[in-house]
């Protein structure tokens, strides 16, 4: 134990004097968490609170086009600016001038097309009411509507583009439905549809209540902090490879290793002490990053991080994840011949592990081989456990499977490391 204790003291002293290593392990992940959460939060805000600027070029003179613009306004997601009819071709320039991410060109035949379509639907309905063959009416394909064109800035992410497309589609649907109702009412009653009835028919949509599910029945709405802080804390823990991997290589290739080999102590004691010291580092990293989420985020205008109710479960999963990160770093250090190899491979491999582990793309969105590969990434098991705790307010029993999987991966890494030590005649 004395040998282990002096080794721990030595490793702690070496680490405490490695200012670059400490910066890499603490400062960089903290900056990463703050920046990523801020960006993610801005995206949430952009969709939920801020409005997307949109330029609409209406080349039509009919009422349906005006109704469409009104509907787009009513969605609440956009700040609408109209531009002149002659700007259809140069709408991209207008978008740039007005700093708009989106542009819509309403074709000149829009209102006429909407009316044609409404008339066609109405005729079909009237034919059906009177028992005539509805196929005698104009087929839908023959209506031949001109497309409405939506321009977008390529920086918009695909998921956001699909949301925008859905919103525009719903505005179109309202315009079309209103016109169809009016036409149908007129055809059957030979008088205008009363405004009050029209509003009632169009606005009676069932509302959607969005409620987050949770293990304990609480309804805590997730935010950018709940999503990002746990995810990037895992990344930070694996970031110890940038210091630890290099230290293992440095010790291995330096003269001190020759001396260590000639002393009556097994090098495994040295590796055990590194595991203890760096495991404490990973726990400290998690503690610091969670604290920043809890106390600093509200000060800088980000949503606060809410800790899960089962703190023991949070500690256990962090402990096993930290051990896994440390074991992986030592393993890379043992197999690498130079610090450059260790740092290069280490950095790239943790980015790959984080990608397949679901830190960058949600693992539920993955398919086929990618979905299978998530299981080999320790980050996946840890992230899933963190999400159960932070987002679903789960307890220890909900994450036992994740802890067991992390533990098995760690043991496999330790076995590979031991094999490497034997193969390289280091023990």
């Amino acid at each position, binding site marked *: 134990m*004395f*040998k282990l*204790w*002096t*080794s721990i*003291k*030595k490793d702690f*002293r*070496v680490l405490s*004097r*490695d200012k670059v290593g400490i910066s890499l392990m603490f400062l960089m992940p903290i900056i990463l968490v703050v920046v990523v959460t801020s960006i993610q939060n801005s995206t949430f805000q952009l969709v939920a609170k801020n409005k997307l600027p949109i330029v609409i070029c209406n080349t039509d003179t009919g009422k349906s086009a005006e109704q469409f613009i009104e509907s787009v306004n009513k969605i609440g997601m956009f700040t609408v600016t109209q531009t002149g009819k002659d700007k259809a071709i140069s709408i991209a320039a207008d978008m740039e001038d007005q700093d708009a991410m989106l542009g819509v060109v309403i074709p000149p035949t829009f209102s006429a097309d909407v009316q044609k379509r409404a008339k066609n639907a109405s005729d079909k309905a009237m034919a059906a009411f009177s028992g005539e063959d509805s196929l005698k009416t104009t087929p839908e394909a023959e209506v031949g509507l001109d497309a409405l064109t939506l321009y977008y800035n390529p920086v918009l992410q695909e998921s956001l583009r699909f949301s925008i497309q859905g919103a525009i589609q719903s505005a179109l649907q309202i315009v079309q439905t209103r016109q169809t109702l009016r036409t149908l009412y007129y055809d059957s009653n030979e008088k205008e549809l009363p405004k009050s009835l029209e509003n009632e028919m169009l606005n009676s949509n069932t509302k959607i209540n969005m409620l987050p599910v949770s293990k304990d029945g609480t309804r805590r709405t997730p935010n950018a902090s709940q999503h990002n802080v746990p995810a990037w804390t895992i990344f930070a823990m694996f970031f110890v490879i940038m210091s630890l991997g290099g230290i293992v290589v440095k010790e291995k290739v*330096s*003269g*001190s290793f*020759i*001396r*260590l*080999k*000639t*002393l*009556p*102590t*097994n090098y495994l*004691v040295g590796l055990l002490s590194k595991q203890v010291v760096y495991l404490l580092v990973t726990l400290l990293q998690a503690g610091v990053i969670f604290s920043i989420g809890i106390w600093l985020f509200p000060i800088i205008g980000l949503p606060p991080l809410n800790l899960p109710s089962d703190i023991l479960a949070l500690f256990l999963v962090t402990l096993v994840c930290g051990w896994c990160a440390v074991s992986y770093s030592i393993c890379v250090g043992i197999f690498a011949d130079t610090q450059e190899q260790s740092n290069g491979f280490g950095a790239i491999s943790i980015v790959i592990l984080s990608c397949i582990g679901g830190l960058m793309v949600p693992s539920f969105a993955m398919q086929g081989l990618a979905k299978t590969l998530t299981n080999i990434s320790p980050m996946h098991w840890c992230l899933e456990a963190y999400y159960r705790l932070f987002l679903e307010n789960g307890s220890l029993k909900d994450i036992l499977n994740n802890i067991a999987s992390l533990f098995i991966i760690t043991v496999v890494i330790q076995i590979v490391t031991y094999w490497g030590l034997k193969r390289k*005649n280091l023990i």
Partner: protein
Amino acid sequence: MEITGGPLAINIEQMGFRYPDNEKVSFANLNLQIIRGTRFGLFGPNGAGKTTLMNLMTGVLPADEGSIKLLGQEVGKKNKEFNKLFGFVPQDFSFYKELSPAENLEFFGAWAGLNQKQITDRTNELLHILGLGDVRNKPVEKFSGGMKRRVNLAIGVIHNPQVLFLDEPTVGVDVQTRTAIIGYLLELNKTGTTLIYTSHQLNEAEDLCEQIAMIDEGKIITQGHIDDVLQEHDHHSLEELFINLTGKAFRD
């Protein structure tokens, strides 16, 4: 010439070794005996195999054939307790440069099997003898080359080894430091410690060594008491003998 005259610190018999990727530095059927308590010098040109032989004698490298015994015990039998018997001062600075001399000695002392009190006592003694008392708590990376050499030496002897291997312990130091190190080694030898030493400083070796061996291309080309060897080859200095036996051509 077979060395006789006492119990052996090192006994190498029919030893063979070859690096997998380097045919040049290898040993075949090497025999070497070093008497316990002696001051033994191992010399040869660059690439002759001096450091490799040191690594073989200390168990850092495993021999392919034959046997190497240190104080009667087979080297490389994975008996870590056996490693308490000897100390090693490698050619490279073999310590943690971020740590102070006291912190390095604490760590290496513990790994050498000493307890806290023994470490404290030996640290105070060695830092005083080697003139490092005033800088005991300063990081070694800020030291001069000579001070680093003395730290390197102190770590090698912290556990009072019976056999001390020294691979070029005075390379790159000034005359004062060299004199201090050689003086300390001579004192250490008086307490019974066997010194096994390599160097290219042959005039220094004449002051320090009693027994010598010269190796070249993995073979011992001469060995024995320094006076006997010089007399046998009719030379007045080790440098003359060295040039005569190994030639003037560059070796690296």
